């Protein structure tokens, strides 16, 4: 079943035409990776899903409901959680308070068990529970950002460049967790990355976004083998 259907979405920032008719489908239970160079419009697509900025035309359907007219907080309450680019944790608040903000819209009874689950997934958060989030390392902050998003018990998790600026060890850890969330917890994930190598390997399907348009689509292995993809996104990594 299609959880998310994006069809013909255009987004503008003033005169900048950032998305030029994007079509994308995410099925329930899969990981879809969107790769693209800097400025391709990946973050714009993520944010457009959340209604900031608003799309200029097209449709976004989540679980059969057109959500393109909704406000950000309403979209989030439909069951979509976003881990934004650059993590955007609340630096002056403690790790615990960050997690509480993630659960702000959930019933209070969920909080304890969910917290336990996060500790199991990210043991480091339990160790740092009362530390100010701004004092965590980049990798730990990314864990916190993911955990905070998960506290809302989303059906669909959007991750915007979760490996950006992380040490190699943490990059691997992040992708392991993405795989684990999907495999063991059935989480549906839309992942945006420049790190094509890791991201395509963990994904069921991948798409390549270039200058606001999807130019290639296939399963992860196909894209990894595609010469154009290799030339554009993999050679530089090696």
């Amino acid at each position: 079943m299609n959880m998310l259907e994006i069809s013909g979405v255009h987004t503008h920032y003033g005169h900048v035409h950032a998305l030029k008719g994007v079509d994308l489908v995410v099925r329930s239970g899969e990981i879809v990776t969107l790769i693209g160079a800097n400025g391709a419009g990946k973050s714009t697509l993520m944010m457009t899903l959340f209604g900031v900025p608003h799309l200029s035309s097209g449709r976004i359907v989540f679980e059969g409901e057109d959500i393109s007219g909704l406000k950000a907080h309403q979209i989030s309450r439909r069951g979509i959680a976003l881990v934004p680019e650059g993590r955007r944790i609340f630096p002056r608040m403690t790790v615990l308070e960050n997690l509480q903000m993630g659960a702000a819209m959930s019933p209070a009874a969920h909080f304890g068990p969910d917290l336990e689950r996060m500790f199991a997934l990210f043991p480091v958060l339990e160790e740092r529970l009362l530390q100010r989030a701004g004092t965590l390392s980049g990798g730990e902050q990314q864990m916190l950002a993911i955990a905070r998003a998960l506290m809302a018990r989303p059906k669909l998790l959007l991750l915007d460049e979760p490996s950006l600026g992380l040490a190699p060890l943490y990059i691997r850890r992040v992708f392991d967790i993405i795989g684990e969330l999907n495999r063991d917890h059935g989480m549906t994930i839309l992942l945006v990355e420049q790190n094509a190598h890791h991201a395509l390997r963990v994904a069921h399907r991948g798409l390549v976004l270039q200058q606001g348009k999807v130019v290639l689509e296939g399963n992860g292995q196909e894209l990894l083998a595609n010469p154009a993809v290799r030339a554009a996104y993999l050679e530089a990594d090696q």
Partner: protein
Amino acid sequence: MRAIFPRQALSIAERLRDAGWIAFVALVLGVPMIGLTTVDAGNKLVVHTRLPLLMEFVAACFLGRLALRFSLDKFAQRKIERQAQEARRTVQIPARSTLPLIKWLGWWLLGAALVLPLMFSGNRYVVDTATTVLIYVMLGWGLNVVVGLAGLLDLGYVAFYAVGAYAYALLSTQFGWGFWQSLPVAGGLAAFFGLALGWPTLRLRGDYLAIVTLGFGEIIRIILVNWTELSGGPNGIASIPRPSFFGLPFQAPSDDGVQTFAGFFGLEYSPGQRVIFLYYLILLLALLTNLFVTRMRRLPVGRAWEAIREDEIACKALGINVVTVKLSAFALGAMLGGLAGVFFAARQGFISPESFVFSESATILAIVVLGGMGSQLGVVLASLVLVLLPEIGRDFAEYRMLLFGMAMILIMVWRPGGLLVRREPAIMAPAPMQARP
């Protein structure tokens, strides 16, 4: 990131050298400000020296610096120890052991505030000044919600103070309402004005918001000056009734049979009784404010204020309705300002637009910033500094504002994040965690 590396304990020589420097600076500044004074001898001005006073000043700076340095080091030391402890402790979570020094200072200040009128019952000036300090504390706590917690820079806060004051003045003089009756109505009205300011400025941040709020404050003041039928214009409103003690007025016993406070309790009437009553009244209001804000901070909406200050986009992504959260901060802050305004009008008995000029807003904002944005105790310390400095500075006559400005600069150099930088987490341990084995 000063606190990451434990500072070496300073040797005595280093401490003395440090204090010596400060004393030297004090001497250089003190010569023109204190050492020399002009005296009107007959028909010409003669310059006199005041060496003893200058020496006292320098000595006070020297000792003060020693004490300050020492206590700051102690503070930093404790902080490091605590961090080390926290790092070592992995699983178990401390129940409520944080910030012993700050807690201790807070309780100590509260105790001092409670007994102050008893210690100075004969000294009206002290109690009066303390009342002023408390008004600013309450205003500071109110503005703290908007600026410190929600991160919305508001330069027109005095407008809400004015709304509260005028609301009480009008309700009491025109309709004969009492203090306690007017309080909720005036607070509600101020909150409404808060919404009226908040709604159009929802999309603004930082500088732009500051400019609009500044304008809002001025608009309110100008309306008060010009709408003479309502506000009395520049002449203001006089003979505002003073609050009574559960219906017992504070006045000299009279023949018309009115039961007075002094009469009811069989006391000798003295005008000081009202001063002390007003003091305890504002203390009560301020403490209620504090309790209320502290409680709010623990609720989701209160925590969302801080989250919005930190990152609005992240908040939206977490499903938080940024509009309601911001409006609630504006409304609540405004309400608290309005309540302080009611007290102000009742205490003064007379109000005019003069009392609600921009410099008031600036002072309240300075209290919040100087106190360390978001810190409740910091607001108290900053109010003490900002109200008492000009009072003490009266002896320095025309140098008063210079001294005031210098002190502000020094504080910002020493404590760039405000007097108390560290915010206290709203929640120390989640309930389900405590129950865990």
